[in-house]
Structures are given as C-alpha cells and as structure tokens.
C-alpha cells in the first residue's frame, strides 16, 4: 500500500503517546522496529510520513494494533482548524503547522475551536444575507423611499412657514394642508414599517428554504455542498431535486436543439416544431436564455397559487416570497388548464412584459391518486419605448402597489395612506 504525504500525519503523535504511556525509550523502540532513533524522532514529531509496513512493525513493538495507530485520519478536522486560523485577524497568527498536534493531543479543544469557527462563519453569512435584505428588499426600499419623500416634503414646507416672509393666504392654506397630509402619510408608513420589521422576529427563521434556493439559483447554482446560500437541510434537498429535474429536462430537450429553435418568438410554435410539451419548452427557455429570450424569467405556482419557483427578470415587480399580485396571468391560467394564455402586462413603473402562462395537470399516483395542477408563467421584457400597449396592469403585491383603483386589491397599500 502506498501512502500520501500528510495522510499519516497524526500517526507520529499516536506512536509517541503510546511509547510514553509504556515508559519506553525512543532508542529502544527504534532499534526493535529496525530504524534509527533519529528517524523515529522525526516520525513522532510528524515530520516524516510513515508507511504501512513500518506502522505494522512499530505497532508490534508497542503492543498495539496497527489500525489503532493509523486510525482516525482527521484530515478534514485539520483542514477545518487551518480554515479557522485563516479567518482570524491579521495580528493573530497561530502555529498552522501545529494543527495536527493540537488535534491529536487536545481533541476536545480542537473540536471546540472548529465549532466556534463554524458558528462564527454561519453568523457572518446570516449578517451578510440580512444586510442584503436591508438593501434589496423591495418592500423595505419602497417604504423607505416613501418615508424620505414625506420627510422631504414636511421639512421643506415647515421651513417655508418658519422662515417668515410674506406668504399669500392661499399658499399658506395649501402648505398647512400638505403638512397635514404628509404627517398622516408618515405616521401610516412608519407604523407599517415597524410592523414589517417586527415580523422578522415572529417569523423566527427569516429565510425560508425557498428563499435559500432562490439565492442559490441567483448565484448560478454552484455545487450544493459548497453553497453558503443553502443553509438548511430542506433547502439542500430542494436544490438537489431541482438539479435532478433540470438534468432530466436537459436530456429531453438538449441545449443545442433549443438554441437552434429559439429564433421563433412564439414558444407555442417552437414546442410544436420540436415535438416537445410547451411547459418544458418554457422552463428550458427560462434556464438556457437563448438568443431572443435573454431576459426571460419564470414563475411557477401549485394548484393553491403558492409560488414554488421564482426566476426573476429585471424590472418585473416581485414582492417577498409568499406574496403576489392576484392579477398576474399565472393565476388565470390555473382556471383554464392546458390552454396557453398570452398577455402584455405593465408594471407600475411603466415597464411592459410579454407573458405566456400555462397550467398543466398531473396524476403522479395514477388514476386513483389526486389530481395536481401546476401553472407557470414565462416573462419576457419588452424593449423600453416599444409601440403597443398593455392589456393588463399588474403590480407586485397589494401592500406596495400604487394602483389605488385596482379591483383585485385585498388590503390597503402603504403608498396610498396619505
């Protein structure tokens, strides 16, 4: 059997511990094993690798099994200790070459150090994701913009009144009315903001497994094991299942075949020509994003309307997971399975998107099993300033939607509290 340098790095320490436990001199053990005392000294201090044959001879001399001397090649723990050391501040420099010694002599302390480093790493990751949330959460961004707008108006208007000078009565009345409206808006928005931030505590875990998977997808779906975004077991299981599905779909509709057909702007015609089900073509377009579909996004929901996958596209108003606009054509598709619905929708920002929505039905457990429905919506951004108009005005979610007269509104918007 061969040995790799370092693979027996702890064996030396174990040999030394065993020899000292037996109160035997280094020279005696070395002679009995057929090596020089100097060489044994190097082995015991882990400065020379030790092969299987020599381990067997030393084990016999030390009256212990070879397996016991060679077992527990804790390379991963040594790596973890070194990783922990690398993350320390620059002015703290532990003896990296002594990591194996530390692990062998004080396994409990080494485990504690590794656990502490891993916990610090997890907390750091959580801090980064929380920080990302504070800077990217559409609800928070919209709400804070509202607060700043109201504060700006209050400050400028109040200063006008406080500065003195002549103010015509009609202007004075208007400023008073503006102050009243803005202070109302400010108090409503502040209350909504506090309630929203409070919900962080009551939710316990801020991130759902679905959010973790979305973050992982947004990061380019790196290997599941290495992804810092996939913190929970549930998220890792979902990511693996997702990869498996993607692999199956890629095998059924290879990249080259899809790219070749993607010159057609109509996915229905494309599916027909490829002899593929439309829902698969839509999913593959959102993943591969071939020419003509570069900005494609995809939303998928189950029969209850719960979103199970969100591949965002730039400019399309997505709220926090668990929330949605009831006017998204995705939900209309649930009512008419197996029928593709094409729309041009307009976001509150004025951006327009072509959407294609389709619901499909499945009975994975056979005729005796339940009937499952799944809907998906392919989202394709239109060029800014392109002619034509939208046939549907949509939003992100009622609480952050500015469309006051929307017939689908289910709760007041914080943007309309003034």
């Amino acid at each position: 059997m061969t040995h790799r340098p370092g693979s027996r790095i702890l064996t030396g320490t174990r040999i030394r511990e065993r020899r000292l436990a037996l109160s035997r001199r280094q020279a005696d053990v070395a002679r009995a094993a057929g090596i020089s005392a100097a060489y044994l000294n190097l082995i015991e201090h882990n400065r020379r690798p030790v092969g299987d044959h020599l381990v067997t001879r030393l084990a016999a001399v030390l009256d212990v099994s070879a397996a016991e001397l060679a077992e527990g090649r804790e390379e991963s723990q040594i790596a973890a200790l070194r990783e922990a050391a690398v993350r320390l501040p620059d002015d703290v420099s532990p003896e990296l070459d002594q990591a194996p010694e530390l692990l062998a002599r004080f396994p409990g302390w080494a485990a504690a150090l590794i656990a502490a480093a891993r916990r610090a790493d997890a907390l750091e990751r959580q801090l980064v994701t929380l920080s990302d949330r504070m800077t990217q959460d559409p609800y928070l961004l919209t709400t804070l913009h509202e607060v700043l707008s109201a504060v700006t108006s209050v400050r400028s208007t109040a200063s006008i009144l406080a500065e003195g000078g002549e103010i015509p009565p009609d202007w004075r009345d208007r400023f008073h009315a503006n102050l009243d409206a803005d202070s109302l808006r400010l108090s409503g928005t502040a209350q909504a903001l506090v309630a929203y931030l409070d919900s962080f505590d009551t939710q316990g875990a801020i991130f759902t497994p679905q959010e973790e998977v979305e973050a992982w997808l947004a990061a380019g779906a790196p290997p599941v094991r290495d992804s810092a975004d996939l913190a929970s077991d549930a998220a890792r299981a979902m990511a693996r299942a997702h990869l498996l599905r993607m692999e199956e779909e890629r095998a059924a509709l290879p990249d080259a075949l899809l790219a070749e057909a993607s010159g057609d702007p109509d996915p229905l015609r494309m599916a027909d020509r490829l002899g593929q089900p439309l829902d698969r073509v839509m999913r593959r377009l959102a993943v591969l994003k071939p020419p003509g579909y570069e900005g494609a996004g995809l939303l998928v929901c189950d029969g209850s309307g719960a979103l199970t996958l969100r591949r965002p596209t730039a400019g399309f108003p997505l709220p926090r997971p668990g929330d949605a606009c009831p006017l998204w054509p995705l939900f209309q598709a649930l009512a008419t399975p197996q029928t593709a619905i094409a729309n041009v929708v307009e976001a509150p920002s004025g951006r327009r998107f072509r959407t294609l929505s389709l619901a499909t039905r499945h009975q994975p457990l056979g005729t005796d099993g339940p009937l499952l429905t799944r809907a998906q919506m392919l989202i394709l951004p239109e060029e800014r300033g392109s002619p034509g108009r939208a046939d549907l005005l949509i939003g992100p979610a009622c609480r952050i939607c500015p469309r006051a007269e929307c017939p689908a509104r289910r709760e007041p918007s914080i943007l309309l509290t003034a």
Partner: protein
Amino acid sequence: MLDILMIEDEPNIAEAVQFILTREGWRVALHGDGLGGIEAIRGAKPRLVILDVMLPHRSGTEILAELRGDHDASLAATPVLMLTARGQATLALPQADAVLAKPFANDDLRAMVRRMLN
C-alpha cells in the same frame, strides 16, 4: 425664458420647491411624471432642470441620459440638478451637474440653484 423646470412626481415637494425658488425671483415650471419629461424639457428649454431620480414610467437617470444625447447641443448641455432619496454616497450620477439628497434644507437648495444659474 423659463429659469427652472422641475420634474418631480411628489406634488407636495414640487409645490414647496416651486414656492421657495419663485420667491427668489426665478420662473419655475413643474412636470409631474417621467413620461413626457424629455419633451417638457425640449419644449421649455429651461436654464436649469431639477430632476428627481425615482419617477414613474421613466426614471430621472433615463431622462438625463436622453437629454445629454440630444442633437441640440445647447439643450444637451442644460445644467441638471438631481434630487435623490437614496443618498449621494450610494448613487453615481456622472452626467448630472449636481446632486441633492432628500431631505434637504431650503438654504442648501437655494444656494445650489443660485450657483448653477449664475
């Protein structure tokens, strides 16, 4: 000739700024939407544009980019003061002549406009 065209969708802020600057003797007009913003500038040819960054339908940065690319060189060079609610430090607006973060002090607004118009 119009001194200042302000494009701002928050009517209460627009009214306050219009009053502050009008009292200083400048002629001020308002436009309340990103849509038609560039057309309003072309029509009014103001000496200064005050432009909010976050506007419905068309953002202030898009309007600014279109203005700077206008075939009328003198119009393209119109001084632009951007108003942003995101803080000057977080937003790079290289095509703007000046940036004022909301909320702002009326004195700061007056001083900045005076400097840009003079």
